[in-house]
């Protein structure tokens, strides 16, 4: 066989070509293409049922694609067994073997593969060392806390010395505190191992903090594949914009108007200057658009630098410690605004608002694509 | 009045005989409600006893003569028939007297005997012997001798059903017919363990061993299936009580030409007189109680006795009936009894418990290869413990 694999993207570790997958009549993925770079931490982000796990299972070889190809390290693995693909996988439910001790859990695959005893011990010891689970080696999963279990599950992928790590919502079953701790650990693990990692989640904080690049999926289609900051600040369409960020971006429906030579955005009789907005195409008056503003880009009272101001009334206040979230009534919309935790407003207070248009997003009202 | 009667007479000949009883009873203006329970006494008796002790008794029920109902009577669950018996002069008409004796407890009569059955019959298929080219044997010893010839002709020499009571009956028949009446009485009546352990008994066990060889391969369960083997010439012979007669009769076989019967196995002209009797549980309903009396009387009535016993193939309980229509075999039996060649049946001599243990032993003996010595040893301890 000639070495045709050289044509695959050299720098990529996992390449997916024209991947389609149907369950009977239901098509979950269709002609999906994705290149993941060597050593990259890629997060697949999307709401429930959009096909993230399906894609990951295809890469792992647990599902057979209906069509298309999958390359790992430039090798076509479309029809290979999971164990031969050089991948390790971590599951949301941990999927530890409940009747085996942690040590057995880690080493079972290696023993089955027939590795030498001391090689197995060496690898288990290394993984246990990295994950700091040495004291747990003789316990059974039932005697572990959720976080410890998840660590063991990661260890099981670690001992196999794989090229690519696949994570399927590994932290969803943990409580918030543990989740943020383990998140840091996974990030650290990636920094030290420098493996390629593909990480499925529907938690945007995980996606933003962990990813080198995020692929946002919606019903089997990748909407945007970019680094977190680009996704956050320059979402390609309204879906991405609304999906990322908590609380959600504020969306105002309106149209473009010409105000003394300057194009401005107008809704419910109030208009916003669009000075500072960097459009990718010329803005024509009369176009129906949607203006997106993140809560932290709406400035309140003393935060306002210069430029136009609007009036609004505090509807609800949600103090969250470090931040304080205000829900304001403004021109018939409800706007969420994030301010510092120490600044408090009573319900019903009148405030002045300023908008940072350089950080706003404008979408076409019909196609919902960024303008 | 409706009277429910339970019994375990369900084979062809038996059912026909019961029909006669029912007819006679219905003719008195009452109604016979039939409560047949198939299987054998073993299946049916527990059900009857449960119902009597459970307080839901039937009108009348079949038991074997003997000790099966002893305790029911002692617990006052059974009805005293002394009045009926006196009216019907049972004391005079019932023969042999031992039958009535076993219905009598503390001087009171509790059952109406219906027939006499004897176990010691060897039924032979003339056709089978013809096929084997041997003459039809005249006694047990000749039969044993003819065994190999039968086998060679592909005929099962001795038919024996798988139910334990059949093996047990066969053995008892050997005891009295081969070993003689004395031996029989010493062992079963006197429960003399020394005799049971003695050489005479050893001989019986040898004979049983021979029978065991001959019976190998019968592969049937029910007695009438075994009889059927004889009837169709598939087997040479069967040791079975006189009730087997009914099967031959229903199949329209003729004694002497189609089959041969040898009472006392052709050796000892003595028959045991067991049989069936009807017991009448104590009922609260006065009308039913009256119907019970009618049924008791009907059972002992000569006309019923003839009709019933002809169909059943058993001997009537009274000597004063005319059995001109009886066939050859039955006549032979009646003649023996009339001559006084009678012995009490084991049902009357030993308890159901010992009987069951004996059945277990014989069943095991006939179906495995336990040695004659071991079997006798166990037999002795069983007789020792018998009450």
């Amino acid at each position: 066989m000639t070495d045709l694999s050289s044509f695959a993207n050299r720098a990529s570790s996992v390449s997916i070509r024209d991947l389609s997958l149907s369950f009977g009549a239901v098509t979950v993925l269709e002609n999906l293409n994705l290149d993941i770079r060597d050593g990259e931490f890629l997060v697949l982000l999307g709401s429930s049922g959009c096909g993230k796990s399906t894609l990951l299972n295809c890469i792992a070889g647990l599902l057979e694609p209906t069509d298309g190809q999958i390359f790992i390290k430039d090798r076509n693995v479309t029809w290979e067994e999971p164990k031969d693909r050089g991948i390790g996988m971590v599951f949301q439910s941990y999927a530890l073997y409940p009747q085996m001790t942690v040590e057995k859990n880690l080493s079972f695959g290696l023993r089955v593969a027939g590795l030498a005893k001391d090689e197995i011990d060496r690898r288990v010891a290394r993984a246990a060392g990295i994950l700091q689970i040495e004291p747990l080696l003789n316990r059974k999963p039932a005697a572990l806390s959720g976080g410890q279990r998840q660590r063991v599950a990661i260890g099981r992928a670690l001992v196999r010395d794989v090229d690519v790590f696949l994570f399927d919502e590994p932290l969803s079953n943990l409580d918030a505190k543990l989740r943020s701790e383990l998140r840091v650990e996974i990030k650290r693990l990636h920094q030290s191992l420098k493996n390629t990692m593909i990480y499925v989640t529907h938690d945007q904080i995980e996606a933003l903090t962990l990813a080198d690049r995020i692929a946002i999926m919606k019903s089997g289609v990748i909407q945007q594949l970019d680094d977190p900051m680009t996704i956050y600040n320059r979402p390609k369409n309204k879906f991405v914009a609304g999906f990322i960020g908590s609380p959600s971006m504020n969306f105002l429906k309106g149209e473009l108007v010409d105000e003394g030579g300057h194009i401005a955005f107008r809704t419910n009789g109030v208009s916003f200057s669009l000075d500072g907005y960097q459009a990718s195409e010329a803005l024509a008056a009369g176009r129906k658009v949607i203006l997106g503003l993140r809560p932290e880009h709406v400035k309140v009272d003393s935060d306002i630098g210069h430029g136009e101001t609007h009036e609004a009334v505090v509807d609800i206040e949600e103090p969250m410690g470090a931040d304080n979230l205000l829900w304001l009534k403004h021109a018939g919309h409800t706007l969420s605004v994030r301010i510092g935790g120490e600044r408090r407003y009573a319900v019903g207070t009148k405030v002045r608002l300023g908008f940072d248009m350089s950080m706003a997003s404008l979408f076409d009202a019909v196609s919902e694509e960024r303008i | 009045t409706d009277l429910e009667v339970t019994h375990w007479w369900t084979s062809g000949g038996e059912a026909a005989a019961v029909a006669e009883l029912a007819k006679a009873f219905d003719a008195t203006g009452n109604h016979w409600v039939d409560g047949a329970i198939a299987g054998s006494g073993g299946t049916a008796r527990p059900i009857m006893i449960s119902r009597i002790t459970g307080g839901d008794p039937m009108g009348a029920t079949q038991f074997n003569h003997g000790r099966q109902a002893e305790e029911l009577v002692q617990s006052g669950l059974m009805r005293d028939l002394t009045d009926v018996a006196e009216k019907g002069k049972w004391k005079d008409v019932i023969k042999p007297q031992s039958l009535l004796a076993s219905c009598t407890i503390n001087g009171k009569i509790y059952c109406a005997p219906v027939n006499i059955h004897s176990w010691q019959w060897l039924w032979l298929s003339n056709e089978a012997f013809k096929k084997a080219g041997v003459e039809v044997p005249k006694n047990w010893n000749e039969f044993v001798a003819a065994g190999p010839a039968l086998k060679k002709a592909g005929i099962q020499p001795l038919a024996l059903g798988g139910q334990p009571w059949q093996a047990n009956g066969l053995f008892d028949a050997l005891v009295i017919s081969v070993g003689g009446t004395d031996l029989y009485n010493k062992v079963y009546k006197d429960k003399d363990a020394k005799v049971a352990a003695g050489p005479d008994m050893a001989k019986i066990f040898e004979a049983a061993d021979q029978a065991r060889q001959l019976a190998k391969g019968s592969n049937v369960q029910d007695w009438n299936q075994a009889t059927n083997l004889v009837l169709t010439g598939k087997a040479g012979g069967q040791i079975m009580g006189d009730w087997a007669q009914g099967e031959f009769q229903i199949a329209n076989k003729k004694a002497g030409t189609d089959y041969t019967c040898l009472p006392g196995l052709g050796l000892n002209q003595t028959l045991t007189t067991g049989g069936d009797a009807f017991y009448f549980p104590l009922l609260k309903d006065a009308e039913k109680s009256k119907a019970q009396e009618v049924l008791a009387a009907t059972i002992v009535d000569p006309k019923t006795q003839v009709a019933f016993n002809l169909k059943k193939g058993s001997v009537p309980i009274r000597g004063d009936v005319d059995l001109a229509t009886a066939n050859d075999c039955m006549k032979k039996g009646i003649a023996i009894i009339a001559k006084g060649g009678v012995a009490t049946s084991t049902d009357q001599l030993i308890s159901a418990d010992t009987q069951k243990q004996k059945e277990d032993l014989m069943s095991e003996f006939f179906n495995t290869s336990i040695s004659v010595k071991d079997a006798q040893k166990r037999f002795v301890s069983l007789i020792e413990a018998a009450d």
Partner: protein
Amino acid sequence: MAKSVAPGRPNQFLRNLNSKIACIPMMLTALVIFLGGTVWTVIYSFTNSKLLPRATFVGFDQYERLWAASRWIISIQNLAIYGVLCLIFSLLIGFVLAALMDQKIRFENTFRTIFLYPFALSFIVTGLVWQWVLNPEYGVQGVVRSLGWESFTFDPLYTPEIVIYGILIAGLWQGTGLVMCLMLAGLRGIDEDIWKAARVDGIPMWKTYIFIVIPMMRPVFITTLVLIASGIVKLYDLVVAQTSGGPGNASEVPAKYVYDYMFQAQNLGQGFAASTMMLLTVAIIVVPWAYLEFGGRKRV
């Protein structure tokens, strides 16, 4: 504010009264029938009751006689053989069938119905049918012989040494369908991810079953074990219908011994002694288990 006097704790007996009322039938059954009946049986096993229970105590006589009876010994042996093999094969066949059914096969419903329908039939019917199929003249043996293999012998019901296996064949036929169902339910209850993890680990299918899946199915195995075991102890109808304990005593079982001696031999004492021995065996096996399963775990 009203000067409300703090009410005391209400009567403990009246607490949950409805529940107690609703449980009366169950409590009566447990206490009067199962416990009472058992105690009664044990007590009367020390008497020489014949046809009717009689409180004449005779010590351990009945037990001595019981253990001297070769039929009882045979019964025990038979039950042991049947029990062990039935457990092993039920679980084995049931599990293998369930594992095969779990492979996303076509016609799953049809196969399941086929495997399960014998369970709807009684032991009496099962016994009759298999007596017929195993009948040496008309059944399997006869058919094979008529095909030309004259010396073929397959005659379990009339061969004392192997008759119990003939009964086993019928017993398995009747019961494995249910076991298969239970196992299938158990298999379906196992987290999909476990299978995936095992595949990623490169563990072959059969090893996954043996080392991972089966140990995870412990509760199912326990439920199944209880069902099979309680059936085994009660084995009676099948034997009666198929062989009546024959040939000879070769296929006798304890429950039949109990029944025969209580009712045919009219020796209740002996029957009670035998049933007490059976109860003792059951208690030795079941009570520790029941304690572990139901006593140890509490939930509100």
